[in-house]
């Protein structure tokens, strides 16, 4: 898998966990608000996934264009998560899990 794709999947996982950490969206997705521990876990996961999306950007030769593309990718991921939270909130946990696993698989082994 190309570095760009796994970096995009990490962005998606980051926003999905950020979204699930919100009480309203967690309740719509799982039927109950998140506990304190789960909320903190989701936030930590969001930060980690966000950081994990960076190496693919730093590896590109033209860093200026890569950063611009990264911001566009973040925005796209946020829009996708917002769409899912609006029309298919129950799919959010699956998106989080799927995106995280695929991204990890795609960036393995670390170069």
């Amino acid at each position, binding site marked *: 898998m190309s570095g760009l794709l796994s970096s995009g999947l990490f962005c998606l996982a980051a926003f999905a966990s950020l*979204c699930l950490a919100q009480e309203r969206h967690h309740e719509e997705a799982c039927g109950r608000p998140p506990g304190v521990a789960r909320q903190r876990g989701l936030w930590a996961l969001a930060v980690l996934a966000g950081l994990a999306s960076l190496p693919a950007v730093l590896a590109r030769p033209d860093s*200026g*264009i890569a950063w611009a593309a990264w*911001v566009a990718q*973040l*925005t796209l991921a*946020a829009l996708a998560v*917002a769409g899912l939270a609006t029309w298919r909130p129950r799919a959010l946990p699956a998106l989080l899990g799927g995106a995280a696993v695929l991204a990890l698989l795609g960036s393995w082994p670390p170069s």
Partner: protein
Amino acid sequence: MRVDAAPEGLRQSMAWLHTWAGLLLGWLLFAIFLSGSLAFFKQELNLWSRPELLRLDPAPPPMTPAALARAEARLHALAPAAQSWRLSWPDERRPAALLSWREPAPAPSAASGPAPAEAKAARPRLEQRWLDPATAEPLAVRASFGAGEFFYRFHFELRSAVQSRWILEGRWLVGLASLVMLVALLSGIVTHRRIFKDFFLFRPRAKAAQRAWLDAHNLCGVLVLPFLLTITFSGLMTLHSLYLPAGIAAAYGKDSAAYFAELGGESAAERRGRPAPLPLLGEAGWTRLLAQAQREWPGARIDSLALQRGADGRPQLELSRHEGERLQYRAPLLRFDALSGQRLQLLDTAAPAARVYGVLYGLHMARFADWPLRWTLFGFGLLGSALMATGLLLWSVKRRGEVQRRGLAPGRGHRLVERLNLATVAGLPLAMAGLLWASRLLPLELAARPDAELRSFYAVWGLSLLAAALGCGWRGLWSAGALAFCGLGLVAGFEAFSARAQLTLPQAGFAPVFMLTGLLLAGLAWHCHRSATSAALAAGAPAPARASVRPDGALLRAGR
């Protein structure tokens, strides 16, 4: 200002600023954003206006000395007296080479001396021809302004005619609108009470239409904020010399050309030598010059080359790298002595401030963007346009709700805003379709055809304003837009089918894109129809013909 004269918080005053600044320039901002988004596809839309170029091989041929010598020979055949010339080599988005040159001004008649009107006409004239890059044959291309070029020019100077009429005024207005956009973005951030809590929140089925519109407005604004802030600030910067001339004047006096020269990395604006016809370099000359360029810029992609006379009167060759190679705008230039092949100067600024400016400019123009990124940026531009549209509608919906609660009829101001919303938000896409249709409907031999194209755009826009004033509703204008775009899709599909033996990517892409646009507009019309019907059913009356004037929640609530 509050009626009870109680002290006002920062958030309230920012909300006031956001509302009124947004309303006054919202219509213009919508038009600037939508046309700017289309300008990301300037080259492709230009190809729609000049379908003759679609027949060329989209894979650009290599720039060889023989090909350059052929193009040069073509120039000398077409314009032996040209004082300078430029050849833009094709790339993936522009299949033809563009040869442009400067014809010398006709000599003034010695007897009387030029009258002022004649002096104006006696400036060197810029000519251009499209060439087939493989053979250097001039291509017979219809006269057109180019739809992409028009959207690009409309975006930053509200271009209204081929001859640059009112463009300074247009640029001032666009600059003012960008400033207001920046103010509206910042005041909007302050006004938005729950920017993180409601980060992903959208309730299209909310009972109050106002709630759904506000969610949509917030979502468009917050999620796309990095794009919106960048594009607004960089857009404001691109016209800085117009509205911030004092700093330039203080440092450079009247010689503002020196400022622009330094911005481009030149030590000073170089004076051009006395104009004179240029020598024919021939294939041997081009072999030497291209080898020299390869040594200076290994692996570089050359976008265009220009031949002109330097201050010493010797012919100079100027090479420009391809703009897709880096973020910073403009691409660096390299100058050689055209006869000896000696390297003269590299034009590329190293000054930090100028580079920051170049990067901002580059971000705005997005010449670096590949296809996925280009489409993404286009989508963000559409969301930015949706931000203006939802903001404008929100103004109406909110006030109409208040008026209805008090059992009053909407005032003249409200009706005016509603009609202008309609004519702008639904009328502009229709006008854009009008311009694209003009490329196909205007007779090829029509005099001043490019001007007629531009007039068709403004005429259709004017007609939709008239329709809105006469009571045509949202459904009517969206449907007209949908029909216009689906028709364009059919025409494009037919053209692609007739050219199926040698179908190229841009030509294959027009039909689906126009069709999708038409379907999107049809979807909007259908939502307006549904919400008008359901509102009428709720009120226990048959669907009124004019209920579709009201867009309240129409786009969003119909998701049920």
